């Protein structure tokens, strides 16, 4: 299955890209996805331990980390917002 990960603000700047498209073989939930991403790039361990960052699956904030990830899902990784 394909999972899009979108980066914003300082994360986008640091990674120097606004998104990644990952091809994933096994069925997984958000907890597993985190481990998958950390294995890809250790920078993600910094992201996932930062309390100020919020995670959205298909434009809904993740409340339960056991939520299943399915083909076509979009994960948004959001530092604190500063609009307005």
């Amino acid at each position, binding site marked *: 299955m394909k999972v899009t990960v*979108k980066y*914003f*603000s*300082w994360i*986008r*700047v640091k990674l120097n890209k606004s998104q990644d498209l990952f091809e994933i073989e096994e069925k997984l939930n958000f907890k597993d996805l985190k481990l998958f991403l950390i294995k890809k790039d250790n920078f993600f361990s910094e992201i996932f331990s930062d309390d*100020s960052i919020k995670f*959205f699956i298909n*434009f809904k904030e993740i409340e339960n980390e056991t939520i299943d990830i399915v083909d076509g899902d979009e994960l*948004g990784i*959001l*530092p*604190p*917002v*500063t*609009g*307005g």
Partner: protein
Amino acid sequence: MIKITNKDFSLDDLYSNIKSHKNGAVSIFLGTVREDLFNEKESIEAIFLECYEDLAIKQLDKIRTEAIHKWNLNNCIIVHRVGKIPLGDKIVFIMTSSPHREESIRSNEFIIDQLKTKAAFWKFSQYGDDSKIVEAKEKDLEKNLKWKDVIKN
């Protein structure tokens, strides 16, 4: 109406969308690009506004719907600019209309307080080719908390 745009906009055009015999009061808030965005001596040249558009539209729609229901508004328009915005230009526009002023005023303030902490936009200040991330403000989070009881009721 909710709109995310990379162009400046006319207040008169937006107002014409909500003009109505049912309105006794219309409140507008404009956020604009201040030169001392960092309270530093050095003046910025412009800001750059980044947005997660699909999410931001949903978030603004939720805030707008909450405000309309809570204050029984006649109408509400939210416009947010993205991309490069010159000094002094408009960043955000919020317009609320109601029969009496209490409702348009309160709801307008509610919307900007919510938007500041709950909509997927990010500011960067620009100095020449350099850009710098604008840090989120504690104060905005506090302002948000004051509406907790309002939106629970």
